[in-house]
Structures are given as C-alpha cells and as structure tokens.
C-alpha cells in the first residue's frame, strides 16, 4: 500500500527531529499517604498551589496533586483524582506550573470537571490559554458600580429583590425549598440577554446534575452555558477546587468584555470538602471544626465577581452562590459568613413552600443591596408600590386572622396583599419577560384585579397576558426598552380597564 511508505517516511522524519533533552528535574518522595493527602519530602523549592506529578496507575496517564502546605522538611499535597495506586516512597516531581485550567470559547455548551477536562463524551476541548484557578480579584480602579439588570424571569425577584450585573446575590434556604430551581430558571431566562452562564455543581448527586443538564439542553440554554461538575463521588480535593474553576472560566469570558452569570451550587458542600482537606492536612480546627480561613475561602471566590468599567473591557461576573441551611438556622458559621460577603440574599422557606407559595421566597427578609440601581425605569415605578403593599399585608395578615369585623381600609389592604401573593406564585421553568411582569404588577397594584377572586388570579393573569401579546405588542416593546412616562402609563391603564370589562 502507498500509505505504508508514507508512514515509514514520516516516522523516520519524526525520529530524526527528536532531540535528546536533559532537564534537571526536582524530585521528592512520598513519606506518608492516605485519604487523598500525601506528605512529600524533598521539593525544597516547591511553590504554594503548584501542580505536582505523581506516578500514574498506568505509565501513560499521570496522577496530579497540588502543594498546599509548605513545611520546613516536607510538603503537604492533596491528590486530584484517584490515589489508591500511590504508595510510600513513590517519586514526586515538580511541574513548575501553578494550578490552572485550559479555557477557550469551545467550552460553551460543555460539561467539564474541575480540571477543565470534558466529561460529556463529546471529544476533547482544544485550547492554548490557561487561567489560574486562584487569581486576585479585580482592583478598585477597574471596577464600576452595578448599572445593568440581570433579568431572572421570576416576578418576585425582579420586582422586589432586583439583581444587577456584577452583583453577588446569595440564595439561601433549607433542603427542598427550590434553591436550585431559582438558579436554573435564571439561567434559562438568559436566552438572548447577551449573557454566558457557568453552572458549578459542587458535591451534587450525579442524577441531579444529569437532570439539570438535560433540562438546560431541552430549553436551549446549553447554547450559552458551561457546567462544571464535581460530583458527590469525587474526592474532596476536586469538590474544594470546583468553584474556583468556575470563576476562572467566567473570568476568561469577562476579559473578552462579556457578561457572565456564575452559579455556585452549593458553597456549604465546598466548605465541607475544604474542612475535610484541612483536617487531613492537620490544620487546627476552629468553630464547627472549620479551619481558620473558611471566611477567606468564600470571600476570595465571591470577590472575583465584578463589573468592569469601559476602560477595562466592560465585562462582568454576576455570582449566585447557594447555601443550604440546616433546619432554617441562618446563624450557623457558613451562612453568616456568606451573608456578610454577598450584596444581598434571597431567603427560601419550607413553610412557604408547603403553603403552595412557589418560589418559596420570604420577601420580608430577602434583600438586594445594590440591585435597585440596575432596575429598568418602568419596573422601578411599579415595584415601589408592590413592596409597600406587601409590607402592609404582612403586618395586617397575622392580626386579621383573629378579627372578624375589619374596617374597609384594612380589608382592602388584606385583599390586595392576598392577590399580590397569588400573583407572585410562578411555576418552575417558566420565566416571564420583564415587560410582561411590569404590566401585570401594574394591573394588580392599581386595583384592576380586585374584583377577581383570589383563586382565579392566575387564570386571569394568563388571559391578561395573552391580550397584551395579541393587541399591545408595541406597548410591551416600549416598556422592555425601559421607557416610562404618563403616555405609556395611560395606555396601560386603558388596556387594563378594557380587560376588566
């Protein structure tokens, strides 16, 4: 065959061009190994968080580790991946590379592990650029205050707890309260919003991750989403590193001037993994057995969320960290830490969830400290009233349970509140565009729905929206652009009046 000659020829060429290289390698040897942590002697010039090369299970593949503790005689390293084949006395060599992940535009739509390797079986990802996992957050000079909104598509959040691009908004609640659902709905709603999403699954069940990936694919959200996975079966070292991988990937896109949304689901599991690694490295335990630097663990991660100004590319990273509380206890160590780091929090409660209020948002204690500046004008106008109505309703609700005869003013407020609460209910995977939110909130706030029974609200809402979509497309378009004046308000009012008739 003609091919044979060619193969031999190119083989000869390869071998001829093969240069004998002699590089002085710096080596050490394992003195102690167990639970994914190795103590290594030698390596006197090793850097912190440098990648170390361990012998692999087979000769072709190497096992890697990261130097974490640099002590006088030894180096404490955590092993990334399987460690069962490693034994005392094995050779460990330096790579002189700081822990980093390969990044490229090809990552979009892929599922990768915390080392940036694809795990979705769709072939390798080509990239020449590496981003370090740990990077100092952008400085003061390069930043700008939040000015553009992230539309989550969830009525209660967009109206009352608005999130801006570059903000860090914590989603906190017990298990099974729909924390992930809020984050996933937000990702789904980013379609056509010029946003890249990174979903970091930290210590999650593989089945849950598969379900989320399938849902994102089904809704077309995978066209702008990257999933970073460290499953529940992965070693603690990978679980601990995964959010930083997500942040590094997000930074790559931000440096191109893009807006990125990064969901960390969830950081309490990362704190557990870090506690495990730290205890095995014999760092002294502190409160709840977490090491002294758990605060720094989360602050350095979330501080990387930012909004850059025009001179520095203008990109942004919005962080949506998730924290799972145990029995509603937000005064535990990790929740208080993360609450203090973030620019606001969304509280989800079991009680509300079982009362059928879904998303189970507690709007009373949920806040957004900077997002208000980013709301579009029409939303700002209608949401102010909404917040007031909800606050009054909460105050009167408990009181009204015992009173039978109420004065008309109180009754009116309670009725309005009940309707608003009903309105804010929203099923999963059905985000709503902001202009429709504005219209419906306006209608309820102005009392146009007062004549409709509470149980009929959601049906009426649907009818009202179809009417708008059919006949008032232009009006919706104007609102979506962020314009709001008397003329627009009057037109909306007229539409509502027509609808009620």
């Amino acid at each position, binding site marked *: 065959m003609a091919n044979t000659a060619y193969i031999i020829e190119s083989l000869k060429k*390869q071998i001829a061009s*093969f240069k004998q290289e*002699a590089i002085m*390698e*710096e080596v050490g040897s394992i003195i102690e190994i167990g639970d994914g942590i190795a103590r290594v002697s030698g*390596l006197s010039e090793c850097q912190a968080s440098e990648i170390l090369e361990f012998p692999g299970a087979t000769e072709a593949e190497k096992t890697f580790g990261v130097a974490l503790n640099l002590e006088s005689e030894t180096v404490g390293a955590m092993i990334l991946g399987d460690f069962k084949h490693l034994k005392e006395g094995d050779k460990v*060599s330096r790579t002189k590379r700081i822990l980093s992940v390969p990044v490229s535009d090809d990552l979009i739509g892929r599922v990768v592990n915390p080392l940036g390797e694809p795990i979705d079986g769709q072939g390798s990802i080509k990239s020449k650029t590496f981003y370090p996992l740990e990077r100092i957050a952008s400085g003061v000079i390069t930043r700008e205050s939040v000015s553009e909104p992230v539309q989550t598509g969830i009525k209660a959040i967009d109206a009352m707890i608005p999130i801006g691009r570059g903000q860090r908004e914590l989603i906190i609640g017990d298990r099974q309260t729909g924390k992930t659902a809020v984050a996933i709905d937000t990702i789904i709603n980013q379609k056509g919003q010029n946003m890249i999403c990174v979903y970091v699954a930290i210590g999650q069940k593989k089945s849950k991750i598969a379900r989320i990936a399938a849902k994102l694919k089904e809704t077309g959200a995978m066209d702008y989403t990257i999933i970073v996975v460290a499953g529940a079966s992965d070693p603690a070292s990978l679980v601990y590193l995964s959010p930083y991988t997500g942040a590094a990937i997000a930074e790559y896109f931000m440096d191109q001037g893009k807006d990125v949304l990064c969901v960390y689901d969830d950081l309490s599991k990362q704190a557990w993994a870090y506690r495990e690694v730290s205890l095995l490295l014999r760092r002294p335990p502190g409160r709840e057995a977490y090491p002294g630097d758990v605060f720094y663990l989360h602050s350095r991660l979330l501080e990387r969320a930012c909004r850059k100004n025009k001179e520095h590319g203008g990109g942004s990273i919005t962080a949506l960290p998730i924290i799972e509380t145990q029995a509603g206890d937000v005064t535990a160590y990790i929740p208080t830490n993360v609450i203090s780091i973030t620019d606001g929090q969304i509280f989800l409660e079991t009680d509300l969830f079982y009362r059928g209020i879904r998303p189970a948002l507690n709007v009373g204690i949920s806040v957004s400290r900077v997002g208000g500046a980013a709301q579009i004008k029409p939303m700002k106008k209608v949401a102010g009233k909404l917040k007031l109505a909800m606050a009054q309703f909460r105050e009167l609700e408990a009181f009204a349970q015992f009173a039978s005869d109420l004065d008309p003013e109180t009754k009116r407020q309670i009725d309005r509140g009940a309707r608003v609460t009903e309105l804010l209910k929203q099923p999963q995977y059905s985000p709503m565009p902001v202009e429709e939110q504005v219209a419906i909130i306006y209608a309820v706030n102005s009392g146009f729905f007062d004549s409709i029974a509470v149980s009929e609200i959601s049906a009426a809402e649907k009818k009202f929206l179809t009417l708008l979509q059919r006949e008032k497309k232009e009006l919706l378009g104007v609102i979506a652009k962020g314009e709001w004046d008397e003329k627009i308000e009057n037109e909306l009012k007229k539409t509502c009046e027509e609808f009620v008739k």
Partner: protein
Amino acid sequence: MKLKPQQFAAALYEITQGKSEKEIDKIIEDFTALLAKKNKLGWQEQIIEKFLSYSMKQEGIMETQVFTAKEISKKMAEKIAETVFKNQKIKVISIVEKELLGGFVVKTEDKILDLSIKKQLQNLKIKLIE
C-alpha cells in the same frame, strides 16, 4: 515537646564538634544514657542515619547516586557527578541498574538528571503518540 530522631542527631553533632576522641567517648556514653532515660534506644538506627546526613549537610557535602546500566569505575562515576554538579563537594555512590539500557542517571536528595536510554525511549514514545 515531642522529640524526633532528627533533633537527637543534630544535638549529637553539635556537641561532638571539635572534640578529641577521648571527649567524644565520654559524650557518647552520656548520650546513650540520655537515650536510655528517654526510653529512645530503639531509635538507634534512625539517629545514626540522620546523623550521617546531617553531618554531611553541615560540611557542605552532597550525597550523589550515579545509576548506570553497566558497571563503571569509581573515578568515572565521580567525574560524571562532578560535571553535573559543578563546584560542589560530592560523595558518590555508584549503582548498577540494568533497566536503564544505557546512559546514566544522576540523583541527589531532591534533584534528578535523567540521561538514560530508557527515559529517551519514553520521551520518544510520548512524542510519537502526539
């Protein structure tokens, strides 16, 4: 504080420094008594090992191992080690390892220079796979 063999070895080195043989005899006697008192006689071997490496480090001598496929003369091994680590006091140990096929490997406590045929073949293999 918990004591380690390393600390015993270092202490022994420091007190025996610049002493005559007679004095050393006395020191060793006291030292053994101390070990017995501390219940650490079992550490004898580790202490000797640490003592050797510690004293070499203090005197600036590097222990170097030269691995070759075939047996070579001591002089040659020394010459190889000297070329690799210039301007250093070196103590050379020559070891024969057939697996290397050819060439040599020079190794110290935390550095390794691999110029063996085996390593070259491995590199070639990796390159061809690429």
